[in-house]
């Protein structure tokens, strides 16, 4: 096992209770494991929540993270998504301000080229929605930043991931 840092995803089934999110994030913070993203939401079973945690981490530490999460009483199941086919997506909003007509046309063109959705706009501003992988969303932010320097505002939700059925993006 190596010390080289890799991007990995863990999917966690946890008790849907007050304080569980704080417990999990506290556990990771207490051990100085750096999370890139964490998303959480209720599942089809309202007593269970599912978290997707993204980390950039080496093999040995990653094994520890999984073991530490496993020994947590509120954690029902830990799934390592590093080596199995999955689908993963992240929601990203990009708002571009101070647009003239030419800028707006450029935003619409980018959206069309990359399969983004323009979900709102007015005279000077355009709001674009991207649903892509985390790294593709990084690319989109870079592109918008280069095209409209100092005029964009972004917010992103963190990855959610699920095991694939017959096709995957891994």
């Amino acid at each position: 096992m190596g010390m080289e840092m890799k991007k990995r995803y863990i999917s966690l089934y946890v008790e849907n209770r007050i304080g569980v999110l704080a417990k999990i994030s506290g556990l990771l913070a207490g051990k100085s494991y750096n999370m890139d993203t964490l998303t959480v939401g209720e599942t089809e079973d309202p007593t269970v929540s599912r978290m997707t945690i993204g980390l950039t981490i080496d093999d040995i530490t990653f094994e520890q993270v999984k073991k530490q999460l496993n020994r947590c009483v509120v954690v029902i199941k830990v799934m390592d998504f590093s080596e199995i086919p999955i689908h993963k997506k992240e929601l990203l909003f990009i708002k571009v301000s101070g647009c003239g007509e030419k800028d707006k046309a450029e935003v619409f063109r980018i959206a069309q080229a990359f399969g983004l959705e323009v979900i709102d706009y007015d005279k000077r501003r355009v709001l674009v929605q991207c649903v892509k992988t985390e790294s593709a969303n990084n690319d989109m932010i870079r592109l918008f930043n280069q095209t409209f320097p100092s005029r964009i505002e972004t917010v992103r939700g963190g990855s959610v991931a699920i095991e694939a059925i017959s096709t995957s993006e891994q």
Partner: protein
Amino acid sequence: MTVRTREELPRILKEAFYIARTGRPGPVVVDVPKVIQQALGPDEYPKEVNIRGYKPNESVHMGQIKKAVSMLKKAKRPLFLIGGGVNISGANAEMKELAERTGVPVITTIMGKGAIPTSHELYMGNIGIHGSYAANHAVAECDVLFSIGTRFNDRITGKIEEFAKDAKIIHIDVDAASISKNIVVDIPIVADAKLAIEKLLDEVPKLEIQAWTEQVRGWKKEHPITMENYEGLTPEKIIRYINEHFERPIITTDVGQNQLWATQYIELEGNRQFLTSGGLGTMGYGFPAAIGAKLGNPDTPVIAISGDGGMQMNIQELATAVTLELPLILVVLNNGYLGNVRQWQELFYGKRYSSTCLRYRRSCERRCQDSREACPPYTPDFVKLAESYDAYGIRISKPEELKEAFDYALSHKNAPTIIECLIEPEANVFPMVPTGNTLGDMILG
């Protein structure tokens, strides 16, 4: 867990006890808000526990056991390293059998002490920063380190890159998260110690390793742990007195030099005679632990060995012990210092004593480094302190007074007695492996 409704109180209490007593046992906090404390509800206590996120391991992977045995069979210089897990799982008889069946020498962590009787011919002492020469050298020289129920914390590993560097390591632990956390091991086995040792007993042969065992035994004989170079009433003499005059007492310790000396000199036979705070090292532990031990074992002599610093951290428990009429023997090793920190300040900080002298006054000369006749009197007066709680106290300063002091304590059947032992103020705990050194690189004292 916080109890949020009265309805869930019975279930949560049941679960709390289940979690506390199974797997790797330990405390569970249940937060019961005042509204829940006062709410009325049924007293039905669930019979079954089913926590979907908590399934303690109750089996052993036989494939891993077989691999471990095969590795052990090939070993020329095998060694058992036993931690507190063996004591917790009550596997003492099995562990002794395992050592005798294989003939492999045994060393322990301080939490593992007593896993096999300390008088056993295969027992070579504690490993770690105040461990024995034999134990620390055995780890450095062994070729298979068979460890059971230990976390490999920094008190026992010394410089981690050099720890048992010629050895293949087998590790049995009930907590998967403790395996390959600090030391990467070759054969991990997630299992309860008792269960795993029972399985091992079905498989292990006697090993032909007499030369190695003799070598370790030789180290033990050549480099015993002793305080012979100190005069008068030494912790060694006090603890040896306890060894010789009490049959299977329960000993608790505080944290600090008192604890380290106790772990070095106490003789143990059988499970759970020795209660010490080895993991977190919480000063103030020894005296309350003795109260608990006595309540659970009213017919067993219970002796708390504390320092003068730690004793005062929960001194209010004297009221509890007096109220409950508990005849505890509270041995206070009084050196007038927070001794373990003072030892570090002496050895590693140029003897610049800072906030460790308990005879210090604000008007003292700055950077005073000695304890002298002219120093202000020590506070508190432990004898008067005991008497103020309606307990008993006696102060001794010579080894000849030990008998009188312990007899005095034993004469009290329903109240605690403090035996304040005035010991050499600047006595150090040796041997010692300075932080960051390899285990073999010890200050022998």
